[in-house]
């Protein structure tokens, strides 16, 4: 019944509707858009270096004559997947580890929190730098795992402390006295009551992952040229943002749109899950 009620409320929520439409359009643009343009992202037009947007090159060209439209969309395909996956994995991991540590307490808590503290003190950038050369040949999805693995610890600490107070609530006790297994109580009563925090965390993680990926790529890890992502494009374009604004404006604008649509969906989902809101 809960899922039915929540979905019903989600559809009635205007923010969520607009957010989902925007996200669907962006995904469609990223995957169908390249077929509409006349250039492939690997093509180079040696007659047009750094040309501004025109009828031929819709979003202009780069320093080496690549079509910005094709390149940006190619980058966006990567970034959408990286952003969404990293956010889902890291927030999910934070919720599960934090809630289990907080609910079970004792040795489970000690062990999990020891792991969290260890990951917190390790310099994540260094670890990624060491590991990524070994993954050079492997699929770039490994990169998603690496990014996610270092983004969840602080949230899980917050989740743990909130769980500590939630587990004393009478409805949790009631569930225990009904004979419901403890892992089910965690997913049914603890995690949904943390959903506001988790949703905000996940939406923030999407943009953080896209930007973080760009930073790593800039230093030569992650997405490697000639392949592109929104992050690498923004990093490159920002150097010439005033002189050749199209290099910067299109990838940055798409990133803003992407993050905005996910924020809208997140807000709508939070309202749909929160019985206190009047949607």
């Amino acid at each position, binding site marked *: *019944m809960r899922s039915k009620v929540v979905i019903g409320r989600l559809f009635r929520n205007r923010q969520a509707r607009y957010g989902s439409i925007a996200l669907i359009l962006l995904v469609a643009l990223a995957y169908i858009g390249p077929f509409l343009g006349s250039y492939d992202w690997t093509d180079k037009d040696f007659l047009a270096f750094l040309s501004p947007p025109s009828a031929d090159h819709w979003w202009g060209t780069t320093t080496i004559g690549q079509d910005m439209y094709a390149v940006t969309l190619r980058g966006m395909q990567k970034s959408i997947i990286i952003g969404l996956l990293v956010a889902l994995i890291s927030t999910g991991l934070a919720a599960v580890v934090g809630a289990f540590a907080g609910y079970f307490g004792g040795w489970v808590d000690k062990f999990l929190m020891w792991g969290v503290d260890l990951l917190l003190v390790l310099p994540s950038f260094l670890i990624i730098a060491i590991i990524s050369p070994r993954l050079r040949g492997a699929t770039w999805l490994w990169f998603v795992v690496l990014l996610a693995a270092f983004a969840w610890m602080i949230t899980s600490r917050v989740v743990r402390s909130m769980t500590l107070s939630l587990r004393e609530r*009478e409805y949790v006790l*009631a569930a225990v*006295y009904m*004979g419901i297994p403890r892992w089910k109580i965690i997913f*049914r*009563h603890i995690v949904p*009551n943390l959903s506001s925090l988790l949703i905000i965390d996940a939406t923030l993680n999407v943009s953080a992952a896209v930007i973080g990926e760009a930073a790593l790529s800039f230093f030569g890890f992650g997405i490697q040229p000639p392949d592109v992502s929104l992050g690498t494009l923004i990093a490159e374009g920002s150097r010439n943002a005033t002189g050749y604004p199209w290099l910067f404006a299109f990838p940055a604008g798409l990133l803003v749109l992407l993050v905005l649509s996910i924020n809208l969906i997140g807000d709508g989902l939070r309202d749909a899950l929160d*019985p*206190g809101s009047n949607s």
Partner: protein
Amino acid sequence: MSILQVRDLTVTFPGDIQAVRGVSYEVSRGEVLGIVGESGSGKSVTSLAIMGLLPRDAVVSGSVKLHDRELIGVDEDELVKVRGKSISMIFQDPLSAFTPVYTIGDQIAEAVRIHQKMAKDKAAKRAVELLDLVGIPHPDVRAKSFPHEFSGGMRQRAMIAMAIANDPDLLICDEPTTALDVTIQAQVLEVLKTAQRETGAGIVMITHDLGVIAGMADRVLVMYAGRPVEQGPVDELYYRPRMPYTMGLLASIPRIDGEEGPLVPIEGNPPSPAALPPGCPFAPRCPMRIDSCDEEEPPLTPIGGGRHVACIRSREIEHKGLTGADVFPVPVIPPSDVVRVPREQRPTVLELDGLVRHYPLMKGAVFKRRVGTVHAVDGISFDIAEGETLALVGESGCGKTTTLQQIMRLEPPQGGRVVVLGKDSAHLDRAARKSLRGDLQIVFQDPMAALDPRMPVGDIIAEPLRAHGHKDVAARVAELLSLVGLAPEHAERYPQRFSGGQRQRIGIARALALDPKLLVLDEPVSALDVSIQAGVINLLEKLKNTLGLSYLFVAHDLAVVRHLADRVAVMYLGKIAEIGAVANVYDRPAHPYTQALLSAIPLPDPEMERTRKRILLEGDLPSPADPPSGCRFRTRCPKFARLSEAERRRCVDEEPSVVRLASAADHGAACHYAEEIEVITASGDQEEK
């Protein structure tokens, strides 16, 4: 001469929420005005408006005159001089009313020095005097204590000391004893009376407890939906109420001296201040409603004898001499079939035999060592027969809740035995424990916290059904909802859309989902308003009779217990002090603690309250980490104080066990010198403390 004059006070919060809609009253010197009303009736907002303590966005109009000086619209600097000097306030929660990082003595001295030119050492001395006045033992030492080192009752006394520090003309007490246990409540009310005698102040006493008002107030103001609906001298109002709401309120409270039979509930809920009905706000719940009630709101009109009533049918009520029981429909509760069989022949559903639960008291951060033991439950035994209600009563900290938890956990106890439906909890495997959980369910105290706020009501009730693999869950949920008096369409709503009473009904529906044999009720009505409480009590009684349930009922409200329970066990500091059939224990209590407990309960009857002699207990509950030797009650026992030296020896050395009394079949007390006396209808020959 009146100290305080309130005229047409209204308070409106943003969003056009009219919390107070025209309150007028006067308080004279030395007079106690009681304001009663349910939560949301605007009684606290009224007093905050008088003090000028409302948030800035609240719009206050009307007039509040203190000694003919207008307080509404006066700027903050002027009000600061009045607050704490001419008007003092005593709040409900004494823990949050003190700053935790300053000592009690410093905080009282501060209150003195703000309004009087006084040297620091003199103010400190005055603080000690004040603490002595409110009956704090060793006031010079205790003045140096921090608020957390005080017990709840002592904190409330210190709060009173602070309030009277500057000899105020008016004391506003906002539910001053609601958070306290009955024996402590009796002490604090006594202190309030002393404080009033000392200062000669007028008191505005705001509470929902009609018993407290009956004993304290000279005049009473009844509020409903932000307006006074009836006002008058306390006797007139209690014995001859003229407004159906007051009549219903008085008829709906269970009484410790009351007769059997169902309570009279007021149907429905108080209206939301944002959506008031047209006409009389009580009309939708009123059994005497006629069409003209909906036309306009009746004004508060004087009817002689200092009384004011806001009801168009008050003349008729007076003329016919109607009471709440005549007007409000009394529900019919079908009798139970089980009780026809004598108790001895009925099967036992729950048996506790010497149950023990001790908690270790640990110290140290890295290397924990045991420094003591908290004797939360120290060997208690009782049994519940089928179709019976056993009430476990006692003050906070006596081990009631721990006992419940030990039963509900269905795990081997530290000591003793817990036998549920013939199955010993020490010999249960996982599957047997789970199936037994279906027969043993719990209803919690706080209807707010007991329901997952993020789950629709349908899912909440379905949860136990799904956990135990039931089919056709939706139909059962609908059936359960209608069983507890809610509409099946409510299943898709979240808990917070419901009022407190409705939420408690949802909690009951969830507990009934698996057709349990034994229901554990942990203070099920103590968080509810009086008019709602009666409905829930009646529901519990009806369910018990129709479904053949047995209840283990934990409560601190002895009046509710008298009404609902068949047998009662009084707990003190982890032990049972007295146990027996309700009629025996209430009418002829034998243990001094039970006697004190019963005599401390305020009765909603001004005449009896005035003539009653109270057995006041001294001090607070000793710490369960360090219980007294021998009889645990002896440190506070009024009887122990009267015994001779030789007799006392036995109390100190030997721990009394529950012994059956000769005069009754089902009555036992754990006292060496048990002696049955009557305390509810006060007789003059009792020892007065």
